[in-house]
């Protein structure tokens, strides 16, 4: 009985955030446009020297993905904090750390998944070889949920602050660095035609670790921020 109601609470919350995102779809599109624009700036700024673009491409796309994720984070808890829904979430009769997973999933579906979808296009713009594009998509698929999970902790810590944005990036970006290193390394290694299973294992390990610890840390941080 309680499992059933937990599952329905999870589903209701997930659906709520998706519906809200849909009703504000213009805002949701912003990080995605930002991602595409930032990546497009590099060929414009560096000149369309193909080998060079190939060399910097994986790093550029991943840095852009990082910044786009950072930009989208604020939306995860800010409006809930301002209208009081976050207090209500904390007072739910279900464990907060599980409800937080619903919110993070919604955030990823709305902001992370689109990045994965448009990534091949950007790979083509930066003239990455086909294998590298496939790996790019794979690393983004594994890596962007980590960004949402770690980001949730950062937003939860800064949600009560009036100018939390700068601090948020100071807290979150260092924690993003390992993802960036291994993911862009995997893509450029794949471009060189070398097996990348090791990097994928590492990213997988980070994902599992973030999945099991970040929700707890987020719930604890929200508790602190609301008190």
């Amino acid at each position, binding site marked *: 009985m309680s499992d059933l109601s937990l599952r329905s609470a999870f589903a209701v919350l997930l659906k709520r955030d998706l519906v809200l995102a849909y009703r504000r779809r213009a805002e949701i599109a912003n990080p995605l446009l930002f991602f595409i624009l930032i990546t497009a700036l590099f060929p414009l700024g560096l000149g369309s020297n193909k080998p060079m673009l190939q060399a910097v491409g994986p790093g550029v796309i991943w840095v852009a993905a990082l910044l786009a994720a950072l930009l989208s984070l604020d939306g995860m808890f800010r409006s809930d904090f301002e209208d009081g829904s976050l207090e209500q979430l904390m007072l739910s009769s279900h464990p907060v750390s599980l409800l937080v997973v619903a919110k993070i999933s919604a955030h990823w579906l709305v902001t992370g998944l689109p990045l994965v979808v448009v990534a091949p296009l950007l790979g083509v713009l930066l003239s990455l070889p086909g294998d590298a594009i496939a790996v790019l998509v794979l690393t983004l698929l594994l890596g962007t949920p980590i960004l949402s999970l770690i980001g949730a902790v950062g937003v939860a810590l800064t949600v009560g602050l009036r100018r939390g944005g700068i601090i948020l990036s100071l807290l979150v970006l260092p924690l993003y660095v390992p993802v960036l290193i291994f993911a862009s390394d995997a893509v450029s290694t794949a471009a060189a035609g070398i097996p990348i299973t*090791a990097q994928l294992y590492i990213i997988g390990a980070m994902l599992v670790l973030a999945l099991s610890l970040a929700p707890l840390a987020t719930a604890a941080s929200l508790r602190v921020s609301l008190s």
Partner: protein
Amino acid sequence: MTPRRKKRLYLVLIILAGIGTATGLALTAFDENLMFFYSPTEVRAGKAPTDHPFRLGGLVTEGSVERQADGLTVRFELTDTQEAVTVQYTGILPDLFREGQGIVSKGRLGADGVFVADEVLAKHDENYMPPEVADALKTAHEQGVQGTQAKTAVQ
């Protein structure tokens, strides 16, 4: 057990399982090739990229360092005691560069099998000792090697 305790226990178990899985994945990754540089053996075996810059690490082979006429370009062999790769570098070498020393160099592998480096870094080891001790150790080691050889010969 109260339902609350039970729930908490499940949660702890899930988290522990998560951490365990993560560790397992990470350890699997370390069994694969995840490294800062390639060794000469791997280069010889064709594991290093051909049209991509990479790092090559190894020991400078004794007696292999030759300076070109321009005084800046150096050629030397890097070895991991199994295989060796010839490295060519133009520029100023670090203090610690000498024969027998560990080196990490970054560059590309040419079609002729020569590694053209655009950066040479000297990797020093974790041993610290005064020169006289190092000498003494070296002699002792050589004697030790001779000793074992003598033993083998006797047997």
